[in-house]
């Protein structure tokens, strides 16, 4: 009973960290605060994955998002020194229109969530092991796996070409 309430409390603290990080990633005008808030929010989402029963995906979230993507964004900020400069302020009506649009989107999604009668599948297997994951990835989903590998390879080569050649041409 006590562990249950403790877990529930930890869950809500985690949700608070996630939302605080997301707000920090969107609202401040300094880009460095944005990156720090993004890493906080991503780590919080990793904790949510842990609560959703998948320790493996939580680890992958920490490894890929917090470990790789955030570091890549930090490197992009550092490689071009004036990148931390702020862009001029936007007109108030555009900011208000953006806020209204995303607020109505949130209302629509919440309406869908609350009005739909979610029905679980008739028979559900309880196999959460990483072995099953790897087995399915190499049997039923092997085409998608290969395509993702190809996309990553093309992205790496494209990033090198895009970022490298322009420097050579301009300097």
């Amino acid at each position, binding site marked *: 009973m006590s562990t249950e309430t403790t877990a529930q409390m930890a*869950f809500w603290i985690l949700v608070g960290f996630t939302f605080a990080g997301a707000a920090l990633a969107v609202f401040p005008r300094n880009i460095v605060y944005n990156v720090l808030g993004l890493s906080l929010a991503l780590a919080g*989402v990793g904790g949510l994955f842990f609560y959703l029963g998948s320790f493996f995906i939580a680890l992958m979230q920490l490894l890929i998002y917090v470990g790789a993507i955030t570091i890549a964004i930090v490197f992009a900020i550092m490689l071009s020194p004036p990148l931390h400069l702020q862009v001029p302020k936007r007109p108030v009506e555009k*900011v208000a229109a953006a*806020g209204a649009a995303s607020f109505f989107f949130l209302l629509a999604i919440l309406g869908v969530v609350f009005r739909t009668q979610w029905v679980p599948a008739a028979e*559900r297997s*309880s196999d959460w092991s990483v072995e099953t994951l790897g087995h399915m990835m190499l049997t039923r989903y092997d085409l998608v796996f290969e395509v993702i590998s190809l996309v990553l390879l093309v992205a790496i080569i494209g990033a090198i070409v895009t970022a490298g050649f322009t420097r050579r041409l301009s300097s």
Partner: protein
Amino acid sequence: MNTLGTYLIIGAVLFSLGLLGVLQRRNLIAMLISVELMLNGANVNFMAFNRFLAPEPAVGQIITLFVMGLAAAEAAIGLSIILALFRRLHSINVERAQSLKG
């Protein structure tokens, strides 16, 4: 212990914050950060449906892994394009990049 609705609301709020960032900010890197937030909201949805509704719990985890791989590719390409654009325009304000505007 938590219901499906809790996780769906969390995912919706994350996605909406990301949408607000994409619409409101004009700094290219901040827009990329907001897109990452939107992808994470979608991932929370996938994992929640996987936990509460899906017949096979492995499928949602595989989809989440694929989304993470695509996000990594997108971040690499996007950041290199931002760097190239910055060298050419000396600005990361997206409204300056309008050479193709008619």
